């Protein structure tokens, strides 16, 4: 056991990258690694979100807690979050959570003076720190910036007013989903599709067409020239085994062989906008590293040995 290294060198290949969307391949590692990355992205990458609301005036139809809950869920740009302090460990304010190192203050003042309903949106939140502001979606595709006014918080009719002060703090998704920077983080095993060409050739064009159509997603197609079945998009395969069942039903067992590649994953990451999707991945790796460091740092102590036993020894060796 001792001395043998299990170390692997995973490779990442980025396929598509937008501000709030990232698709990449993660190869030469196993499910535990991929899943750890996913879990950290969802739950442990810190962001900033509104945590405390002091309401001065609220004559809207929604009650105070309702508005506070809605404000909490507004994503705030959180590039600063990694360098910020958790207000519970902040020395500057004695855990009060109101100092500049651990908090950002917001103000909202809205009153409806017209007969038309006034939409109070995230744009009406004024931040004390220009780096921490509500996420602006106007530049992303599909939105017309002129009509898009941010995330709606409450609607006011004539005479109604909302005035409040809010404190945003750093936190992680484990504590509350409002601190989670990830809208979607998911991965799939890359499928390995092998068509038995010999057997496939025994099929008529009509049978091929039927077989291809049996897949709910467009994985296969027929080459219009050669009339050969080709794999057009292996990643569209959802492991539904419809094609295998269809082949069996046609009496062509083993027409296609589909296995999941155990060591390569295709990740899809969508961010809430709090941080860029690419940054989310980097932050996640950083957080993961810190967590491993926390384990490693305590390796000298006896209790760590007791705690981790063989694992601790393994880590020291590796």
């Amino acid at each position, binding site marked *: 056991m001792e001395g043998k290294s299990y170390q692997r060198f995973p490779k990442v290949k980025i396929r598509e990258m937008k501000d709030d969307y990232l698709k990449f391949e993660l190869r030469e590692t196993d*499910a*535990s690694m*991929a*899943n*750890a990355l*996913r*879990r950290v992205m*969802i*739950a442990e990458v810190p962001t900033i979100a509104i945590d405390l609301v002091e*309401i001065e005036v*609220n004559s809207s*139809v929604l*009650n*105070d*807690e*309702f508005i506070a*809950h809605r404000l909490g*869920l507004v994503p705030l740009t959180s590039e600063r979050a990694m360098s910020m302090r958790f207000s519970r460990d902040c020395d500057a304010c004695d855990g009060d959570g109101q100092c500049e190192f651990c908090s950002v203050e917001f103000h909202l003042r809205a009153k409806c003076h017209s007969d038309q309903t006034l939409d109070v949106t995230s744009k009406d939140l004024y931040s004390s720190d220009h780096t921490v502001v509500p996420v602006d979606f106007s530049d992303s595709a599909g939105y017309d910036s002129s009509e898009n006014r941010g995330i709606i918080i409450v609607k006011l009719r004539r005479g109604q007013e909302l005035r409040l002060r809010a404190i945003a703090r750093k936190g992680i*998704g*484990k504590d*509350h*989903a*409002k601190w*989670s920077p990830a809208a*979607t*983080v*998911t*991965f*799939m*095993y890359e499928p390995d599709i092998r068509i038995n060409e010999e057997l496939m050739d025994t099929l008529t064009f009509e049978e091929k067409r039927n077989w291809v159509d049996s897949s*709910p*997603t467009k994985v296969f197609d027929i080459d219009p020239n050669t009339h050969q079945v080709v794999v057009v998009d292996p990643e*569209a395969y*959802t*492991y*539904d085994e*419809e094609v295998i069942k269809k082949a069996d039903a046609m009496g062509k067992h083993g027409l296609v062989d589909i296995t*999941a590649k155990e060591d390569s994953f295709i990740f*899809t990451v*969508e961010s809430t906008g709090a941080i860029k999707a690419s940054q989310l991945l980097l932050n996640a790796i950083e957080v993961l590293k810190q967590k491993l460091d926390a384990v490693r740092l305590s390796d000298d102590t006896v209790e760590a040995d007791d705690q981790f036993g063989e694992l601790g020894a393994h880590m020291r060796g590796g």
Partner: protein
Amino acid sequence: MGVQRESVAGFPGHNLPLNNGTQIPNSPVKGLAIDKQVLAAPIKSAVEKYQLLPEFLKVRGLVKQHLDSFNYFVNTEIKKIVRANNRIESSLDPSIYLRFKDIRIGEPSVTLDGVSENLNPHTCRLSDMTYAAPIKVDVEYIEGSHGQKTRAQKENVVIGRMPIMLRSCCCVLYGKDEAELARLGECPLDPGGYFIIKGTEKVILIQEQLSKNRIIIDMDKKGNINASVTSSSETIKSKTTIQMEKGKLYLILSQFSTKVPIMVVMKAMGMESDQEVVQMVGRDPRYSALLMPSIEECGKDIHTKEQALDYLESKLKRSMYPPSAHAPNASSEKAGRVMTILKDVFLANVRVHQNNFRPKCIYVGVMLRRIMDAILNKDAIDDKDYVGNKRLELSGQLISLLFEDLFKTMITDVKRTVDSILAKPSRSSRFDFAQWIVRDNITNGLERALSTGNWDVKRFKMNKKGVTQVLGRLSFIGTLGHMTRINPQFEKSRKVSGPRALQPSQWGMLCPCDTPEGEACGLVKNLALMTHVTTDEEEEPLISLFYCLGVEDLELLSGEELHAPNSFLVIFNGHILGKHRRPQRFATAIRMLRRAGKIGEFVSVFLNEKQRCVYIASDGGRVCRPLVIADKGISRIKEHHMKELLDGVRTFDDFLREGLIEYLDVNEENNALIALYEADATPETTHIEIEPFTILGVCAGLIPYPHHNQSPRNTYQCAMGKQAMGNIAYNQLSRMDTLLYLLVYPQKPLLTTRTIELVGYDKLGAGQNATVAVMSYSGYDIEDAIVMNKASLDRGFGRCIVMKRLSAIIQKYENNTQDRIARPNRAGNDAGRMQVLDDDGIAAPGEIIRPNDIYINKQTPRVTRGTMVTGLTDSDFKFAPQTFKGPIGESSVVDKVALFTDKNNNMCIKYLIRHTRRPEVGDKFSSRHGQKGVCGTIVQQEDFPFSERGICPDLIMNPHGFPSRMTVGKMIELLGGKAGVSCGRFHYGSAFGEPSGHADTVEAISHTLVEKGFSYNGKDFIYSGITGCPLQAYIFMGPIYYQKLKHMVLDKMHARGSGPRVMLTRQPTEGRARNGGLRVGEMERDCLIAYGASMLIFERLMISSDPFEVQVCRACGLLGYYNHKLKTGICSSCKNGDNISTMKLPYACKLLIQELQSMNIVPRLKLAEA
């Protein structure tokens, strides 16, 4: 004869339409034309007819039966009541009188300090008032003084206040549109049909009872055949039973002490000839044979009318009529009494004009005939549970009973006061009859009955309890369900299954699903969606019409002719009108007239071939429903009709008026052949259903695909839908209910039904669409528990608002003092508890309130009785603050504070306390398929399974919930919901909707799923969130509409260490509300005994309950006492302290010993060393 001629004279008006043949839609010429048109028309699908339903509900509303009934009372019935008792005469001087000329109900208003102010319902709700309108009468009366009488008139004299049903024709909301309703603070989706009494909303439940004035044949426990009639006339209610016992026929009437032979009664009514009786029953030799023993029994010594009357007189109950002293001839008086009973009590529904008992005799003849039919053929026995034999009593009828009684009491009261005034020898003031009308009786009587639900009508010895209920406002559906509920008349404890079973005749009238579980199961029912309950209709014009249509009058027929084999009896509302030789033609004629709108649309004709009778009914309380008329199996509704309907040119009433649709009641349905769909119609078909899903009620209508579920599951959902939290009404935030449960983010179900859209559940939903994965996870999901995603809860899933009302009164006392509210002391001991108070001493809205906080800093005067006091100082008041008792450790918010004056002129303060809760372990949730479950655990999102598309479920449900429950509908809901979200269209799952397109088929849904890249079977390939590995099985995952039920852990959890005790026994109190202990009961104790845990029993039953130290005298065995001066125990019977031992005893035991002693029993304790 006279009657006959009169009715002919009254006829011509009705005769006109008959002669005008073109008016009748079914005339042969027109019928042909329709056929051609049909052949040319394109083939129609049944879908189009659905559009009638929203139209129907627009016209009739969901609680139209209540409104119709109340409107009928207010517009017609009340006038009839007053007309029948319109004169108050002084018994001293009959020329002094008061006559009611007219009566009407005014606008809802309240008179405060002499000023009348108009009311609207919402202010009544908020300020605990009764929503009532003045009852105004026009009177003509005698006034005068010193023997001079003048006749005077007065209009709009108020005799009392009538509580007004919301949305009835007297209500301010009547005919208002949405914007006007909003201005009045009213929810446009609220159905109305209830009353507001002292600020609480009260519903008069629909009361179910057996038909009045109808012959019901049944068999009693001994196997005797009974024919009974419950007669009800304006003056009296009676029950007449004719029984066949041991081959002889008897009459049972409560006025007679024993059964009396029916033949004697017949003789007493003047039918002295036995032959005539036999003829009246029918000349079939089998009938004569059955009648023989009765004739023989009577024939021995009773032959004449006088003999019969004497015999009956001897059977009279003694106490009934004490012989009056001034009667000169006792025997003729007695005979008169029997005659009166026969005239007024016996078969009271058959009137006797000028001592002509013939109609009564014929009625008895028909009863006897039916009994004999039943003996010869058991099928002829009536089914009491048959819906056609039932009548539903609605609010209007119930109030009219009460009003009539109160009105009569008022008249007698007025008469008594007037008499007493007139009896005074010297009257100084001018006599004015009108001023003695008292109004409080009627007002208070109506208000009391409606608020307590106790219906006491002295005249009929009626004493019903629980007629009204507080309208349940826990959910919108609960409110609607409450309005359609039908209360049974008989007691619930009886162990008969018959009335509880589902009756085939309930089809389309009463909901087959919606009934409670437990003791009221099957007895309490609910109306179906399209049911209408009839109101009374004028009888006289109809009767004369029937005579003109060829009914031969009873009076002109001999007994022989009556039952002639070629003719049918005609029975109208329980009265035998006569016979008809061509019954089929007669029935068709009446139906044509009804379709042409010449007679009321709710008149029903039922040709009973078996009984050879034509039953016509126009009475109130029958259930009926609309159906499309078909000629030879071809629907009368054509495409162009529906197009006109869609264009808004045509309304539901037009369909009715033009004879395309008609209402059928349960009896008439027996003469119809109703096709479910147009395609199923055969040439014999007479009617076509509008939509099959209308057989369900409002509550069952919410369930998607209910026809795929096991039937009890639908019943469970009907009960649970009423407990679901969501939106209650558009005005929910301006209401001040005692308890209000709201959901923070309620949603419209992804899988809807047509009923949901019709009743407005899509606007006031009570649940959320949760993505559900059907799989096992973590072991915290056994026994129907569900696993919830913490991130979903963070984002607002299942979050709810609970509002509770608190109230305080500033009482005024008899000595002119009153409570006061003090300014809070910001520095004293209680400053912390007074944080929520404003400077005025009342809690301020928006403040966070914790348990034990003071919400009103009230002080009461120390002296509240005795003489008038003024100038009180601070020392005359003692503090009486009211503190908030909420869940410990939780903080609530004061939502709203309302101040108003109650009717005793005290200031009242209502507080609404709001508490927002997120789901926690133990909260109850349910889908719409009777699948309830508690939250078993809450799991982090990263641990939750996910699909490669990134879909992560909101909750996980254990698959073991499916096999035994067989809720296939839930699985289809999941599939349909998944297809719905992926293609962006709400899918439908109406009951029985697949053939008509009101429910998407599984095939279509699967097709959509495949199109959107899902598996056709709704299963997904899922990865474990914990390991990242794929799960071994495909997981059935998709959205299901979940309801959060009102049962929450926070309201139920309870534990106690030490705490309050009951004074009498010194044992811990019971129940959560009193912070009580958890009882080790008899069975638990038995377990401990069996286990041998004696010390545990000792601890639980004494140490932690009611230990008490007693002094016991070893000599006499009695309890002594402890003398604190001498510091020894002393036995009071031995008068010394020599043999005293100290021991511990449960206090309850000491109490028992003392109680026994007080009963002269000496319990002695014998002590031994242990």
